[in-house]
C-alpha cells in the first residue's frame, strides 16, 4: 500500500522514517521523496497488513499520513494511444497490449508526474 507522508522539519529535525522503521520493524520502501530545510514529502510503500501500524507510528511522530489509493488519473477519451508516456515513466506504468492500445497499471504509479507534461494530449493528470 502506498502512503503519502508529509512532515514539517521545524521541531528537532526528527528522522521520522528511520525512527518508524526501527520502532515497527517494517521495511519501508521510499519510492520518492522531496525534502528541504523546512518540510518534506515522501511517498512510501509498505506491506498492506502493516499499513495501520506504520500510519499510527508516523502520526505519533507528528507526520501527516494519507493512503494513496490511485495513481495518475488516466483520461481514456483524450488518449489516442500514441505511447509518448511509455519510455519516460520510471516505473513502467504504461505499456501496449497486443492491439497497440495503451495499458495503465495504476498500482505501479508513484505519482512522480513525469508523464503529465510528456502527454501531448493532456490525458494524464494528478489526482486532486
Amino acid at each position: 500500500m502506498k502512503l503519502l507522508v508529509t512532515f514539517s522539519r521545524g521541531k528537532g529535525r526528527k528522522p521520522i522514517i528511520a525512527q518508524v522503521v526501527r520502532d515497527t520493524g517494517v521495511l519501508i520502501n521510499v519510492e520518492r521523496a522531496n525534502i528541504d530545510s523546512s518540510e518534506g514529502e515522501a511517498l512510501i510503500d509498505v506491506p498492506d497488513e502493516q499499513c495501520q501500524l506504520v500510519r499510527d507510528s508516523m502520526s505519533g511522530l507528528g507526520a501527516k499520513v494519507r493512503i494513496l489509493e490511485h495513481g495518475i488519473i488516466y483520461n481514456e477519451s483524450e488518449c489516442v494511444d500514441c505511447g509518448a508516456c511509455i519510455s519516460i515513466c520510471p516505473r513502467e506504468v504504461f505499456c501496449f497490449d497486443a492491439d497497440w492500445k495503451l495499458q495503465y497499471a495504476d498500482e505501479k504509479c508513484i505519482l512522480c508526474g513525469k508523464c503529465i507534461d510528456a502527454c501531448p494530449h493532456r490525458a494524464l493528470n494528478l489526482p486532486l
Partner: protein
Amino acid sequence: MHKTIGQINERIREGSARVVTAEEMPGIVAELGEEGALKEVDVVTTGTFGAMCSSGAFLNFGHAEPPIRMERIWLNNVEAYGGLAAVDTYIGATQQSDTLQAEYGGAHVIEDLVAGKSVELRASSHGTDCYPRRTITTELLLENLNQAIMCNPRNAYQRYNAATNTTDRALHTYMGTLLPGSGNVTYSGAGVLNPLSNDPKLRLIGSGVPIFLCGAPGMVIGEGTQHSPAGGFGTLMVTGDMKQMSQEYLRAATMTGYGVTLYVGLGVPLPVLDLDVVRATAVRDEDISVDILDYGVPSRSRPTVRTATYAELRSGSVEINGEEIRTSPLSSFRRARKVALELKQWVESGKMPLALPARAIDPIKQNKPMHQSKKGPRVLDIMDRSVITIGETEEIRTAAKKLLKGETNHLPVVNEKGILVGIVTTFDVSKAVANPGKAHLVRDIMKTKVITAAPDESVDIAIQKLEQNNISALPVIDSDHRVIALLTAIHLGKLLGGRWLK
C-alpha cells in the same frame, strides 16, 4: 499479368474487389507468392496517425452587414492569416493563442470546429469606402462557414528520424520529452502502414489521388513542402473538407516546451496494378529503417547515434552502447490501423473509387537547406579577447586582486599548460574571504564543471547555454581547450543597436 485502374474500379462496383490493409499484405505475398498476390488483391489501404505540424485550413465566413475587409483576425484568440481579401483566412495548426500560449492553438481551433463547438471570431480593419466596418466579434459554428477546407502543406512523411538525447539535461522537443544520458528514444511513423513507404517510387500517389483525411474523403494536391524522396523523406500536400471530418482522426496536441501541433489521420488506397506494386506493398517494419539522432546537438545536422528499423523501435527497446533503452512512439499505431481499416471499408463499399495521379510527383528530388545570404553573429564577433585567467595553484587573494584590476566577475582557471580546468567568480572569492577556512588556493574554491563556447559557434547557441545554466559568462576555448576569450552578458549588449540586428 497486370490490371488496369478501370478493371479494379469495375470490380469495386461489382462488389468483388479484394481490399486488404498494408499490414496484411506482407503475409499474403509470403503465402501466395507475388503472382498469386497480384491475382488475389486489388487494393491495399495504408494509414498513418501522428503529429503533423504543417497543417491548417482555409475558412470563409461570408459577408457581415455592413461588410468588413478583415485585416487582422483571431479565432478564440489564435491569430489567423489576414492577407486573403475580405472574408477568408488561413488558420495554421501551430499558431499559439495570445492568452493561453502553448496550451491552445490553431490545431485546437480546428478540433473545436470539427467537434461542433462554437469559436469566437474577432477581426479588425482600417475601413474602406466599399468595406466600411472596422471591427467584428461573433460566435461561429462549423456549419456557419461557407467553406472550411483543410489544406496541409506537409503531411504523411515517408518515415521520420528517431530521437535521443546524450546531454545531461532533459530536453523538450517536437519529438517529445527526451531524458538525459540517452534515457529514452522517441520515434514517429506508421512503418508498415505508411502511405509513401508502400509506394516509394511514387507511381500511384500523386496529384488528384483520392485519400482519407481526418475521416473525410480528401485528395493529394501534389508534393508536400520539404519533399525529399531521394533520402526516403517524401511528403504530401493534401486537402479535404473539414465539414466531413471526425474528431476520432483529428486531435490537437501540445508538445511541452515546443508548442502546439495537430494529430492527423491520413490514408491512401493503392491499386494493385502489377508486380511492382505487389513488391512495394509487401514492405514490412523490418525493411524500413531510420536514424536515431542526438537531439542534444542543437544543429541542423544532428549526429546519428545508430540506425534502427521500425520493427526494432516498435519492440519497446533498442540497444545503444550495450544498454537497452526504452522507446516511445509519438504517433498512434492503433489509430493508423483504424484509418487503414476504415479506408478499406470505404473502398469495398464503393464510397471511394480509385484514381491514378493526374500529375506525378517527383520521386528523386532532394531537399535543400536554407540559402543564408548573411551569416548570423558568431561568438568570435562579440567575444572579449582580453580575457584574464588565473593559475589553479595561485592564492585566492591573487584572484581577488585580478578580479578588481580586470573589472570582471569571472576568472577562467588554467593549469600550467594553459588548459582550462575551472572557473572562479567574484561570488566564489567573496565567499572564501568572508568564511575563511581551509581554502587558500584557487583550485580549492573553483568550479570544475565549466560551460564553454567555441569561437565559431552561433551567438544564439551561446545565449541558450547562458540561459539554461543560469550563468552570465562563458570562457571561449580553442580545440586544445585553451582559453582565448570570454563571452559575457555585457558583450551580448553589442548586438543591440549594432550591425547584426538591422
